[in-house]
């Protein structure tokens, strides 16, 4: 028994689109090649923690107490043995700040006068100024320094090589970008979500306007198939394609850049899937007003490009001015990126990202509820 309902037709259209896509070598190759290119580009542009070594940082010691000197020596030892940093000692703060401005060092660690005194009575504070010109390096430096001090604190609290009455050291960072933890691990999920959504959109613009331009859309419209099946079948084909390209990109980022997946892959796939659907719905609405492929692609590009820069892929959404943040939250990419990143990097369970999932789900339903009748109107004029 063969099912002949709208869902069957949806499946037939989806399968046709995917077969057609699979047959055209150029499209297939670009699906695999584009993510590789993007990953190479971004991977080397924003390198991970492990790939950058010997970052020069400055130390300024304003306290000549033995306590301060012993902590500084341990700090220098740890910083250099990990090969992450190259420590340069400056005698005055102004010299060190000058070096920071000139880009000779990427951070200045300041042990203020009275540091030793504070340490022997309880908690002492270290001041760190970080170069903000390069946000990614900034993140790596911050994370690296924090890591050294937390190791130092372990040694201090266990009195390992230090007097037992020493307290712990807290670090005070200046001028930090809020919200960004560190490294390529923060950026990778954003790139993955972005490439997948972009691929889906490009494919969609093709799928609809190409068929209208070629005349094959008429052929489908002349069959007794509901408009729901046509629109959803095409959207599903893009979603499936997106998931496949997502899998390729994830594998590549693992192999090439050592990106780790901490979370549930099915939840990641679900978020990507909904992200593509939400964007696809939006794309159908945007392109239903034009009938040729080129205009459709232009519209898609206009939709995509600003999204990429304000959706928390390159830097946290929090960093945007409020009005731009509000605009970002009106589009589905930010929810896809946030949700996907939380699951991939922070192992967030569904309960932690349910709001992103819900927004994407509602977004998909609403955009398709608009897109299907709009498509119907546009094709029959």
């Amino acid at each position, binding site marked *: 028994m063969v099912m002949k309902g709208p869902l069957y037709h949806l499946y037939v259209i989806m399968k046709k689109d995917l077969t057609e896509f699979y047959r055209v070598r150029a499209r297939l190759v670009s699906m695999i090649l584009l993510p590789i290119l993007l990953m190479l580009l971004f991977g080397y542009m924003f390198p991970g923690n492990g790939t950058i070594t010997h970052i020069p940082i400055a130390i300024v010691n304003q306290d000549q107490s033995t306590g301060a000197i012993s902590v500084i020596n341990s700090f220098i030892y740890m910083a250099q043995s990990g090969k992450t940093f190259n420590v340069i000692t400056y005698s005055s703060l102004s010299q060190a700040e000058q070096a920071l401005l000139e880009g000779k060092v990427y951070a200045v660690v300041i042990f203020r006068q009275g540091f030793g005194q504070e340490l022997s009575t309880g908690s002492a504070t270290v001041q760190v100024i970080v170069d903000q010109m390069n946000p990614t390096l900034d993140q790596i430096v911050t994370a690296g320094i924090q890591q050294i001090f937390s190791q130092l604190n372990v040694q201090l609290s266990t009195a390992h090589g230090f007097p037992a009455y020493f307290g712990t050291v807290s670090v005070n960072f200046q001028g930090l970008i809020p919200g960004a933890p560190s490294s390529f691990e923060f950026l990778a999920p954003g790139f993955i979500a972005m490439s997948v959504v972009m691929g889906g959109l490009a494919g969609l613009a093709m799928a609809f306007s190409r068929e209208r331009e070629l005349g094959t859309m008429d*052929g489908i419209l002349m069959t007794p198939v509901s408009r729901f099946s046509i629109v959803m079948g095409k959207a599903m084909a893009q979603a499936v394609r997106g998931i496949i390209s997502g899998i390729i990109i994830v594998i590549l980022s693992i192999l090439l850049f050592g990106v780790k997946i901490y979370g549930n892959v099915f939840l990641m796939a679900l978020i990507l899937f909904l992200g593509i659907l939400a964007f696809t719905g939006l794309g159908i609405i945007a392109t239903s007003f034009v009938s040729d492929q080129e205009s459709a692609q232009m519209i898609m590009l206009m939709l995509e490009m600003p999204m990429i820069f304000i959706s928390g892929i390159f830097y946290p959404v929090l960093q945007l001015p409020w009005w731009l943040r509000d605009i970002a939250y009106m589009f589905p990419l930010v929810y896809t990126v946030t949700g996907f990143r939380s699951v991939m990097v922070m192992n967030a369970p569904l309960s932690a990202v349910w709001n992103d999932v819900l927004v994407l789900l509602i977004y998909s339903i609403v955009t398709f509820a608009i897109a299907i009748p709009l498509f119907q109107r546009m094709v029959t004029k």
Partner: protein
Amino acid sequence: MSYAVEAENLTKYFGSLIAVDSVSFKVKKGEIFGLVGPNGAGKSTLIRMICTVLRPSAGKALVEGYDIMRQPQEVRKLIGVVQEKLILYAPLTPVENLEFFGKLYGLDYKILKERIKELLEEVKLSAVKDRPVGTFSTGMRQRLNIARALLHDPKLVILDEPTNGLDPQSVRWVRDYIVNLRNRGLTVILTSHDMYEIDELADTVAIMDKGKILEMGRKEDLKKKYGATKIEDVFLELTGRELRDEISGRLRRRGW
């Protein structure tokens, strides 16, 4: 009911431009109805309305008794259409193309398989059934395109410029096949720029210009009425000899 198509005051506006202007006509079952007109006369728009792809601005039409606006799904099951643009996917093979459309028509898979085999033999493409359509010549593509239109066993076949750009052998094959369709009892609506084709094939001829049907009748009656020996003479008598392609250009720019 002896009419395959009954159209009454069919009208289509694109913005302020009137493409089809209150057109009425009837197509008898089992005949070849030739629809001719210069570029931009409104033939394709008229046909797209009958095919339920375009929504008329006004008027109504019945296909085998079904209303094109209220019962489009029923109409779609009864008509097979060969448009000027080929409705085929170049990366897919003939079998895949036909299976795709057959499934959309809701044909049972077993019946569909049989039907595809039968049709591919009929249009002489059995030998290349597993090659991508993109590698085919224009003539082969058009033969497959015709097979696609016949997949669901339609009662009415609409052919819009079916011999456009084909080599003489393919043209001959298509023309013979059209006569064959009529002999099998199917109704055919044929549009063409080739007046000899219409003269050879059509039983009834409608001459359209500027969105209106100027003249319509049995081919022989029309010739007699205008004292002509060829349909071409009747056509030129009615539509004039000046060149024109303006309206069609305007519509094309709107994406039609």
